[in-house]
């Protein structure tokens, strides 16, 4: 029992760290959203849009995302293997190293050390740090699974194993570079080949950081928190294998109409369409699980997080493949439609499920109940509204932008100069900032609720002792 409580403290450490980096990342997100319509918010050299945007994306993908994944995966793995972690002290070291690495990552990006590869901006010394972090994690997770005390591995463990393997391959291959000093390196890949490697990475980083780990949480915490058994085990088997197989073919849909060989683009588009099926396999499984008793939406405050989260995942996985089609890509690619798409996934799907998982874990660790269901409900509606404002405004302005770029006069000349197409984004960009602020307020309610639950739990265990 003592082992568990030590490991639980590590889990809690990761959850609190990820929330801290989440706050930093969201605040920077609001900041750069203001820079989009008011350039006086740029403070050179460290706080211009070009440097802050990568702190925003890395801070949230690696700080909030990976932090949550590490903590929640340790928790899930312990439960599903019916044993404490194989290397508890290594996990604690992992927690410290993680926070040091994220802090250094943020500082290095502000200093302009940037490989210019999206979601792989960190320079080579930090890349090595990230790989070490990942290896530590993999040893502990896989070791604990191998030494498990439960014969069968539940679906969540499949997704965890696949994520561990895929991210390792993706990150190492895409970051291969020749150092040119401590803070600068040049990729070993050049030209169209470097584009192909980068988007193989870039798309699958989304796949194996923002999709499969979150599905692992979904498959574990939905049945746990509702008390309803998973609808179909067979469906989850099909969904799992077809998802991890198809994902890796699709990176080049980010490069439609670029000089990359056409056949790679076309193959990526085809597999993107195919991906709708396994994605919706999980969506359907989620819906039918709760369909056994829809009243859970009312009676169990966590159910709506999972159902709305999986709904946004379902919308995301239809919208994404649609964007891959040439006829759609040529209109919306390079416009604000794309950030609208991404943020439905991150704000609507990832943080919904991550937050619900944390709501489940923290009271369990302290053997208590959540501090306030009402605060949790307020959090839910604020992040939902904030995200919808964000995504919908960006879709509208993205389509508008794409259409204005294409508009021609009767005599065949372009109808709008670039600046004319730019200024029409400003009203929408302002609305987006409001959406972001509403979302951030929702997250404040969430963090308050988590902290108060911990406080309640601590005083409880103190009184027991």
């Amino acid at each position, binding site marked *: 029992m003592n082992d568990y409580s030590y490991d639980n403290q590590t889990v809690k450490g990761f959850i609190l760290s990820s929330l801290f980096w989440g706050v930093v990342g969201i605040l920077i997100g609001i900041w750069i959203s203001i820079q*989009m319509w*008011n*350039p006086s918010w*740029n403070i050179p*050299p460290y706080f211009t*849009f*070009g*440097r802050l*945007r*990568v702190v925003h994306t890395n801070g949230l993908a690696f700080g909030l995302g990976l932090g949550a994944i590490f903590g929640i995966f340790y928790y899930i793995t312990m439960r599903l293997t019916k044993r404490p972690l194989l290397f508890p002290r290594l996990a604690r070291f992992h927690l410290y190293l993680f926070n040091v690495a994220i802090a250094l990552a943020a500082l290095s990006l502000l200093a*302009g050390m940037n490989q*210019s590869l999206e979601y792989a901006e960190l320079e080579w010394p930090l890349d090595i740090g990230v790989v070490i972090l990942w290896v530590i994690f993999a040893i502990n997770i*896989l070791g604990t699974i191998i030494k*498990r005390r439960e*014969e*069968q591995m539940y679906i969540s*463990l*499949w997704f965890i*194993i*696949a994520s561990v393997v*895929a991210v390792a*391959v993706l990150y190492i291959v895409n970051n291969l570079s020749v150092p*040119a000093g401590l803070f*600068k390196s*040049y*990729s070993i890949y*050049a*030209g*169209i*080949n*470097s584009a*192909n490697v*980068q988007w*193989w990475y870039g798309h699958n980083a989304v796949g194996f950081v923002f999709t499969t780990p979150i599905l692992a949480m979904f498959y574990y915490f939905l049945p746990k928190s509702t008390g309803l058994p998973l609808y179909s085990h067979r469906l989850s088997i099909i969904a799992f294998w077809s998802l*991890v*197989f198809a*994902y890796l*073919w*699709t990176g*080049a849909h980010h490069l439609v*109409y*670029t000089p*990359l*060989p056409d056949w*790679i683009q076309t*193959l990526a588009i085809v*597999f993107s369409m195919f991906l709708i099926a396994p994605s919706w396999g999980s969506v359907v499984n989620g819906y039918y699980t709760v369909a056994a008793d829809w009243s859970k939406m009312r009676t169990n405050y966590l159910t709506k997080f999972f159902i709305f989260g999986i709904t946004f995942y379902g919308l995301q996985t239809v919208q994404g493949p649609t964007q891959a089609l040439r006829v759609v890509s040529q209109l919306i690619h*390079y*416009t604000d439609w*794309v*950030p609208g798409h991404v943020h439905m996934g991150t704000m609507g799907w990832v943080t919904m499920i991550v937050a619900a998982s944390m709501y489940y874990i923290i009271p369990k660790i302290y053997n208590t109940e959540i501090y306030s269901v009402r605060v949790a409900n307020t959090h839910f509606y604020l992040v939902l509204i904030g995200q919808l404002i964000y995504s919908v405004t960006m879709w509208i302005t993205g389509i508008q932008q794409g259409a204005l*770029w*294409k508009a*021609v006069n009767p*005599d065949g*000349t*372009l109808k709008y100069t*670039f*600046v004319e197409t*730019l200024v029409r984004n400003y009203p929408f960009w302002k609305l987006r900032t409001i959406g972001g602020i509403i979302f951030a307020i929702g997250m404040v309610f969430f963090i308050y609720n988590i902290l108060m639950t911990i406080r309640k739990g601590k005083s409880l265990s103190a009184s027991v002792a």
Partner: protein
Amino acid sequence: MAGNIYSKPVLFTIVSAIVILIGTAVTMFIPMLTPQMHPRLENLKPFTPLQLAGRDIYQREGCNNCHTQTVRPLKTEVMRYGEYSKAGEFYYDRPFLWGSKRTGPDLARIGGKYPDAWHYRHFEDPRSLFPQSNMPSYGWLKERLIDPEEVRRHMDVLNLPYTEEEIENLRGKTEMDALIAYIQSIGTAVKRRPVVKKAVVREVELKNPLAGDPRAIARGRDIFMEHCAMCHGDDAKGDIGPSLVDDVFFYVEGDLPDDDYFEVINNGTFEGMVEEGRTAKGGMPPFGEELGKDEIWSVISYIRSLKEEGR
């Protein structure tokens, strides 16, 4: 049998790794080994030390967060930016800098489009040229010097050719100088194509049909203020670009005939371009895709009317 794998974690890990690597091999690893992924245009030049230093700054400042560097083969895109991007243009780009978002315009054909002076002013204060621009100001790059030895190290790592003189010449160069040298090199391996106006080609007028027309002059003034004043000054007496109200064109005394005037506005200028026996230094962007035939003639009417006033 099929169920066994879910109780054998090592086997499961190996199988899932293989499943993941199939698509990776077909779309990424195998193409990488073929020459189709490493094309090079014949007249593509490697980066000079100054250009590479500028490219490093482009990366450091995250310019690719707002600017793409690839023109898609779509009609209006080629009109707006120029010839669509070719696979062989990026041989020396490690890594590629195509970007994924156009908060600002694409830069794949920016090299040579504007004169250096335009870029200095624009980086210093983008809103002095485009009052509604949201681009950050980069005037502070003028106060920072390039470290020649660092650039040499970078050239060595990339195995790019350079001379001692080129490294020596970096001394005293600012980061702004380097960035602009890089910007001016982008996309120059592909020749700029003249703007072909169907309406123009079919019925090319040798003389301005709107010459002296007061309505055309008024309209021409508006167009001038929007598109031309930025470089030639509000009074057309010259600024970044030359004066349009003196009688010197391309550094030679004497008027430019209407049809040549039209062509310069329509197609812009590039270094070495010869017009009426006069050689241009380049730096004027083409306006033919934005301004219709009548609009160009109106601008010419307006400029000529200013000249009349001056007499």
